[in-house]
C-alpha cells in the first residue's frame, strides 16, 4: 500500500510536470546550427557552449518579452545536404531566430530555407556570397572573406616581400573564397604567389604537397581552409626539414591547432576580429565562462552575442514576428559582448574589424 502511495505521488508529480511543460510551449524556440559532429565539431562545441550560456543568462533575467527561450541545436556536420535537412527540421520546430550555420557552404543553402520560412538569422560565415544573394533575413556578425583576405594578403605582401608564397585552399566555399582574396590582396600590393593549389580536406597525408612546396622553395603558405589540415601540413613540413610560415583566416583561432600541430603552431598567423575577450563590456561574461571551465575563445562569444542580438532586437520590436524583428535588426544598433553591432542593407556588419594575430604557445597575440 505504502509503495502504491509513493507511485501515486510520483504520478501526480509527473502529471504536474507535464502540465508545466504543456504551458511552456508558449516559449520562444531559438536555434543554433553548425558542425556538432564531423571534423570541425570543435567549432560546433564552441557555438553550443556560447549559446547555452547566453540562453541560460537571458532566461535567468526573465527571458524575452516575458517568455523563456528554448534552445534547439542542429548538427549539419559542415555538409551542405545535411544543412538543408537541419534547416527544414528547424522550420518545423517553429524557431523564431537562428544562429548559424558555421561553414559558409552550409549557411548558403540553409539560408534560402530560413528566408522562405521568414526566420531571421545571424551567422559567422565569412564567404561574401552569404549576403550577396539579396536575402533580407540574414545578418552577418563577422566580417567577410574579401575583407579578411585583403588584410591577410596585404600583410603578406608588406612583411614577406621578396619571399616565395604559395596560396593553397581546401576547395570548400570558405577556403577557396578566402584563398582567392588573399591572392588578390597580395598581387594588388605587388607580390605574386609562386604556387596556387588546392588540397582535399579530411586526409592525413599532405607529404606530396609539402615536397612540392619544398621543391619550389616556398617559405610562406597562405592557406584558405580549416585548422585541422594546417596542423598536419605543419607537422609534415617539419618532418621534411622545412620551415613554413602560415597565414590563414579566422578558423585558425581554434586552439585545437596548437595541440594538433605538436609544437609547430608558433609560425601560424591569421586574421580574426579583434579579440572579444579584451572587450571591457565582455569582462563579466568572460569571467562567467571561465568559472564554468570554458575558455571563451573562437566562436563562443559570437554565439553569446547572437543570442543577445535576438533578445535586444525582440525587446526593441516588442515582437518576435519576422517583419518586426527584421526591421529592428536592420535598423538598430546592438550592444553585445563582441562589441556594438549594426548592419548595412545587405546584412553585413557595418564596422567589421580584422587584425592579424600570431600563435605564441597556447595563446594568440596581435602582431603589427
Amino acid at each position, binding site marked *: 500500500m505504502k509503495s502504491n502511495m509513493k507511485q501515486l505521488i510520483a504520478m501526480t508529480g509527473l502529471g504536474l510536470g507535464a502540465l508545466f511543460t504543456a504551458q511552456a510551449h508558449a516559449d520562444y524556440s531559438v536555434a543554433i546550427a553548425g558542425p556538432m559532429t564531423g571534423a570541425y565539431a570543435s567549432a560546433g562545441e564552441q557555438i553550443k557552449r556560447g549559446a547555452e550560456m547566453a540562453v541560460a543568462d537571458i532566461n535567468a533575467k526573465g527571458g524575452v518579452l516575458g517568455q523563456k527561450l528554448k534552445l534547439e541545436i542542429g548538427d549539419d556536420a559542415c555538409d551542405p545536404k545535411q544543412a538543408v535537412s537541419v534547416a527544414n527540421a528547424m522550420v518545423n520546430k517553429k524557431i523564431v531566430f537562428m544562429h548559424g550555420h558555421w561553414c559558409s557552404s552550409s549557411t548558403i543553402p540553409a539560408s534560402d530555407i530560413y528566408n522562405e520560412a521568414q526566420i531571421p538569422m545571424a551567422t559567422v560565415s565569412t564567404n561574401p556570397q552569404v549576403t550577396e544573394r539579396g536575402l533580407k533575413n540574414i545578418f552577418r556578425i563577422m566580417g567577410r572573406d574579401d575583407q579578411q583576405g585583403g588584410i591577410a594578403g596585404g600583410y603578406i605582401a608588406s612583411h614577406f616581400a621578396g619571399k616565395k608564397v604559395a596560396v593553397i585552399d581546401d576547395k570548400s566555399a570558405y577556403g577557396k573564397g578566402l584563398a582567392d582574396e588573399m591572392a588578390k590582396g597580395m598581387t594588388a600590393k605587388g607580390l605574386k604567389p609562386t604556387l596556387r593549389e588546392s588540397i582535399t580536406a579530411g586526409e592525413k597525408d599532405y607529404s606530396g604537397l609539402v615536397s*612540392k612546396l619544398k*621543391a619550389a622553395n616556398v617559405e610562406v603558405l597562405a592557406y584558405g581552409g580549416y585548422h*585541422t589540415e594546417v*596542423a598536419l601540413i605543419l607537422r609534415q613540413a617539419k618532418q621534411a626539414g622545412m620551415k613554413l610560415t602560415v597565414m590563414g583566416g579566422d578558423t585558425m583561432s581554434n586552439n585545437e591547432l596548437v595541440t594538433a600541430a605538436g609544437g609547430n603552431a608558433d609560425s601560424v598567423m591569421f586574421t580574426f576580429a579583434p579579440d572579444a575577450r579584451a572587450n571591457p563590456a565582455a569582462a563579466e561574461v568572460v569571467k562567467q565562462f571561465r568559472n564554468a571551465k570554458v575558455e571563451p575563445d573562437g566562436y563562443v562569444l559570437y554565439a553569446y552575442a547572437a543570442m543577445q542580438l535576438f533578445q535586444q532586437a525582440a525587446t526593441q520590436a516588442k515582437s518576435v514576428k519576422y517583419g518586426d524583428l527584421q526591421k529592428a535588426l536592420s535598423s538598430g544598433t546592438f550592444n553585445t559582448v563582441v562589441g556594438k553591432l549594426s548592419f548595412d542593407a545587405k546584412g553585413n556588419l557595418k564596422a567589421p574589424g580584422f587584425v592579424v594575430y600570431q600563435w605564441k604557445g597556447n595563446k594568440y597575440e596581435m602582431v603589427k
Partner: protein
Amino acid sequence: MMGQFIQQLINGLTLGSVYGLIALGYTMVYGIIGMINFAHGDIYMISAIIAVTVLTLLGSLGIMAVPVALLITLVVAIVFTSVYGWSVERIAYRPLRNASRLAPLISAIGMSIFLQNMVQLTQGARVKPINALLPGGFELFTSNGFTVHLAYTQIMIIAVTAVLLVVFTYLITKTSFGRQQRACEQDRTMTALLGINVDRTISMTFVIGAALAAVAGVMVTVYYGVVDFSIGFVAGIKAFTAAVLGGIGSLPGAMLGGLIIGMIESFWSAYLSPEYKDVATFVLLILVLMFRPSGLLGRPEVEKV
C-alpha cells in the same frame, strides 16, 4: 629533380604500406564470406584512438623509452582491436550468415556508423594529438638544393609492413589455420563437412584483419601524430579501392593495390596537382577494371554449376 623523385618514392611507399595493411583486412573478409566489411576502416580508427590513449598513459607514467612504449602500444592496440573485430563479426555479421548478400552489407554500414559515433561520443570530437614519438630522421642527400629526408617513422612503417607480410604469408600458406582459411574461401559447405569449424575460422579471419588494421592504426598515429574519430572513412575508402584494384580476394593484390595507390597519390600531388590526385587514382581503377574486371591479381570468378 632527382631529389624530389626519391622523396616522393619514400613518401608513396610509406602511404602505400598503410593502405596495403588495411586493404588486406578487406580482401581477406571478402575472400572468405564474400562481403565488403565497411566497418573495417573504423576498426582501424579505433586502433589509432587506442594508440593515442596508451601512448598518453605511458607518457604520464614516465615510460619514455621509445621501443618499449611502441611495443606496449602495439600489443595493447592489437589485443583490443582484435576483440573489436571479433565482436563486430559476432554481433553484426554471423546472425546474417545465410541471409541475402545485401543484408550483411547494410549491417556493415550500420556498424561503421555506430563505431564512429560511439568513439565520437565517448572520446569527444576534438582531434587527439600526441607528441612526436620518433622525431627526426636521416638526411639522405641534397640535389639542386632539395634535401631528401627519410624520417625514422617512415623506416619503421616500411620495415614493420615488410615483416608483417612475411609472417602473414607464412601464416596463410604454411600453417594449418592458413589451410583452413583457404579451404573456407573455396567452399564453406565442403570444408564444414570435412570437420572444420567454419564459424571459428571466419572469426579468426576477422581477428587477423583487425590485428593488421591495428598495426596500421598505431603506425599512422606515430607517423602523423594527429588522430580523430573520422579518419576511418577516408582511409577505409582508399584501402577498399586498393583491394579492388589489386583484385578483391587476392592477398598479394591488396598489398600491390595499396602500394600503387600510395605511389600515384604521392607522385601526382608532387608533380601535377594535389587537387586531382583522387581523380587520378579512380581513373586508374576504372581503367584496370575495364580491361581486367577482377583486378590486377584477382582470379576471374568461375561460375559454379
